[in-house]
Every structure is written in C-alpha cells, then in structure tokens.
C-alpha cells in the first residue's frame, strides 16, 4: 500500500499540510464534508487524514450513486428482469448491492439474465443484436453519468430501436447537499465539492451554499494534493472571513459546466417530484425520470413494477454514514457481519462507498495520525 509520503509529491503534501495547520485557530474544531465518493476513496487510500491536524475532521457525504439507491429499486430491477424476454443490463458496481430479496447476482443464480456493461452504449448494442429480447439498462449515477444515459436515449430514438429502454435512477447532487445542510445532526464548516459532477453542472449551482448557508465550498480534483489544496483553500476562506464557491479543479471543470451535456439531460429527462434515497429518505426534486416524449424508452412506463418500499435491515447504519453522522467503523456490523464480500449495506459495495474505502485502506490510518500530525506541526513552525 502506498501513502502520500511515498507518493511523488510528498514534499508538496507536507508543505500544504504545514500551511493548513498554521491556519487553525486554537481551540476551534473544523468539520469539512467531502461530498463525492471518489474523494472518500482518495482520502483513505492515501491516508490523507494523517496530514491534517487533529482539529480538522473530514466527514463523508452522500456522493456515491450506488450507495444511495434504496433497496426497493434493486427489487424493482429484479422484477423487470423476471419479465418474459427481458435482458437487463447494469453497471458492474450494482451487481452485489443487496435488495430486499438478494442482489442481481443472487437473482441470476435463480434464472434472470442481468448482465454487467461498462457503458449504456454497450446496452444499446446488445439491443440491436438481440431484436427478440427486451433490453433494459438500469441507469444510476449523479450528473456525471446522466448525460451518457441521455445521449443513449437520443441515439436509440434516432435509430428507431423498439426493444431498448432505461430504468432511470439518476439522482441530482444539489438537493442532497441541501438535505445535509438542513439536517440538524451535523454542523459543517465547509464542503469539498465533487469534481466530475461539476464538469457537467459547473460551479454556479453551489452558490446557494455560500449565500443561504454561509459556508465555503471548493470544487476539488481527485489527486491527494488536489484534496489537500482544497482543504487549504477552505481554511484560507474561513481565516479571511470569506465564504465563496472556488474551483480548485479548473483544469478540468469549466465554471459553466458542459452545456451540451446539460441540454441532452433536459431534452430527455425531467425532475421527479420526489425520490427515496437510502439513508436520507424522501427528498423532493432530487432525481430524474424519462420525459413523456421518450416514453417508449422508459422502463417504468413499459413494465408495471411493484415499486415497493423496503426498509433497510435493522443492523444497517448506512443512512448515518451517508449523512456523515457516523464514521464507517462506528457501525456495529462494520468489518464483522458486513464486509465487501458479504455486504449488508450499500456503502460496503461500491469502491466509492465510505465503508468499503475505509475497510480496504483506512483501518491502518488511525495509528499513524499522531506521528504525522507531529511532523506537520514541526514543519509548520519552520514556515
């Protein structure tokens, strides 16, 4: 396993860490949420918490699309997969997610045909090659993947395909951030904003966080140094009494996002009145559905699925983990009954889930924290 200190930019990481430490007000505790699961992964993988003073705490947010899918939607997918002549397709990350009656893998063992695909375009191709099958793509993801689904629907329409549809589970990041900000359980000092979602939506949609909630947000890249730099930018804002949307990842994220992608989404999809998020409950206008105009590609209109609400298992504390209220290791079943091989909750399934990331990399972090903070403070005194 490699940590930042073996990483090519160890020097820069230490320098950043020292500067961050020098901005900490004595006696103040800071809590920043990284919204995106990709960031959670980087933080644990590279032991970034070792590089932060003990008074800065990172809490993990709801930005893992696999993790927020409620069990009922898994069950609905399996229901669709059981209909005559259906060939269901889905991203590999979904295959092990437990539903009320097992996962896609379990369902395949009982005779359904749920195939993993890399891209919705693979699914479209399968539909072209199998005209006698009804091919359904189970679409999940935030604004990062929604444009791909939208483009695929447009393509299917242009080709006049009649045996392809999408089971749309796309969610939107802004209402989730708002739900977290409105939740009384958590007092945050700022946000590390999602990088790849922002390539699509741009930076403007985050402005309400600064104007209505008076918290800073820095859109960040995925390298360890990106994240450290973003934390430095957040600390700088706080110490200067500013609260703004800043873009640390400007080499990839345009301020206005990707207009072609946004257009494709608005052409094919619209907001649902509400959608259930695992752990966060129902959030209004937080997910997308296929527009009436493309109804013939909408699996929800084609198949009359039960749409049942399934309660999460009692032992599961994914909701608290997704809201940043609990750390993965504080869940009672973490690492015992719930492991990546036998996941009870979704956060243990996707590599971007906080529990999986912590299980794979983070368990060794805490013993190193003290040592690294000592290094950071010594270096800070040299600056």
């Amino acid at each position: 396993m490699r940590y930042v200190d073996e990483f090519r930019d160890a020097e820069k990481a230490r320098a950043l860490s020292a500067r961050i430490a020098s901005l900490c007000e004595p006696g103040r505790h800071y809590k920043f949420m990284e919204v995106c699961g990709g960031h959670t992964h980087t933080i644990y993988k590279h032991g970034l918490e070792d590089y932060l003073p003990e008074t800065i705490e990172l809490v993990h947010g709801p930005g893992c699309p696999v993790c927020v899918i409620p069990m009922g939607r898994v069950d609905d997918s399996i229901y669709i997969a059981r209909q005559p002549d259906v060939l269901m397709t889905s991203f590999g990350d979904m295959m092990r997610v437990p539903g009320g009656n097992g996962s896609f893998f379990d369902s395949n063992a009982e005779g359904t045909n749920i195939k993993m695909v890399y891209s919705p375009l693979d699914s479209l191709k399968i539909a072209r090659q199998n005209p006698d099958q009804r091919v359904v793509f189970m679409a999940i993801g935030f604004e990062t993947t929604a444009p791909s689904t939208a483009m695929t629907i447009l393509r299917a329409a242009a080709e006049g395909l009649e045996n392809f549809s999408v089971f749309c589970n796309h969610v939107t990041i802004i209402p989730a951030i708002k739900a977290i900000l409105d939740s009384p359980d958590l007092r945050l000092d700022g946000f590390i904003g999602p990088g790849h979602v922002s390539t699509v939506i741009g930076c403007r949609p985050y402005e309400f966080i600064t104007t209505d909630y008076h918290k800073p947000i820095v859109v960040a890249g995925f390298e360890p140094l990106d994240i450290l730099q973003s934390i430095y930018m957040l600390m700088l804002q706080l110490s200067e009494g500013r609260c703004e949307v800043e873009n640390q990842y400007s080499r990839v994220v345009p301020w206005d996002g990707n207009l072609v992608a946004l257009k494709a989404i608005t052409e094919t999809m619209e907001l649902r009145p509400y959608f259930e998020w695992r752990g966060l409950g129902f959030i209004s206008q937080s997910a997308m559905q296929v527009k009436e105009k493309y109804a013939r590609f909408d699996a929800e209109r084609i198949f009359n699925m039960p749409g049942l609400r399934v309660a999460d298992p009692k032992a599961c504390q994914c909701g608290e983990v997704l809201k940043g209220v609990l750390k993965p290791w504080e869940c009672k079943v973490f690492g015992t009954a719930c492991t990546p091989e036998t996941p009870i909750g979704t956060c243990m399934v996707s590599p971007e889930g906080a529990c999986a990331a912590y299980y794979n990399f983070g368990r060794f972090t805490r013993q190193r924290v003290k040592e690294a903070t000592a290094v950071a403070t010594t270096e800070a005194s040299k600056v």
Partner: protein
Amino acid sequence: MCLGIPGEIIEILHDKPDLAMVDVSGVRRAINIGLLEDDPPVPGDWILIHVGFALSKIDEGEAKAALEFLEGIGQAYADEIAALLESSID
C-alpha cells in the same frame, strides 16, 4: 463508474463523427465524443472518459498525472479498465 479514465484521441472516425479512437493505457477503444460537440477534440487532445463518453478535455500533463494516480489506485482502476476493455461501442 465515477472515477473517469483519461485517454488520448488518436483518430476521429469520419463515417461516425461522434466516435473517436482513443488510446487508454495503451489500448485503443472507440469512445463517444458527442458531449464535446461545442469544442470538438482533435487527435493528440486528452479527454476524461466516463462510461464510454468523453465528458471533458484535459491538458496532457494533467491527463498523465491522473493516469499515474489511477494506476496507483489499484483494484478500483483495474476493474474500470477491465470493464472498458469488455465494452465495444459503435
């Protein structure tokens, strides 16, 4: 799925203008570039690929750093590349 993989545009396919041949970690794959239609990439440009689509252009230095980083991520990246290799978009 959300990681995103950097790749280098090798060739725009003229019979299918929204597709490009892209070099990803030494392997060539067709990638949909329809989302970059406002600022179409040319051979030599680097792009960030999500589930078969180029989502944004990135500068070459950044792309190489990202690739090096992703290769260091291990299993998650290996899985993403393996999934991409299974895919055959057209």
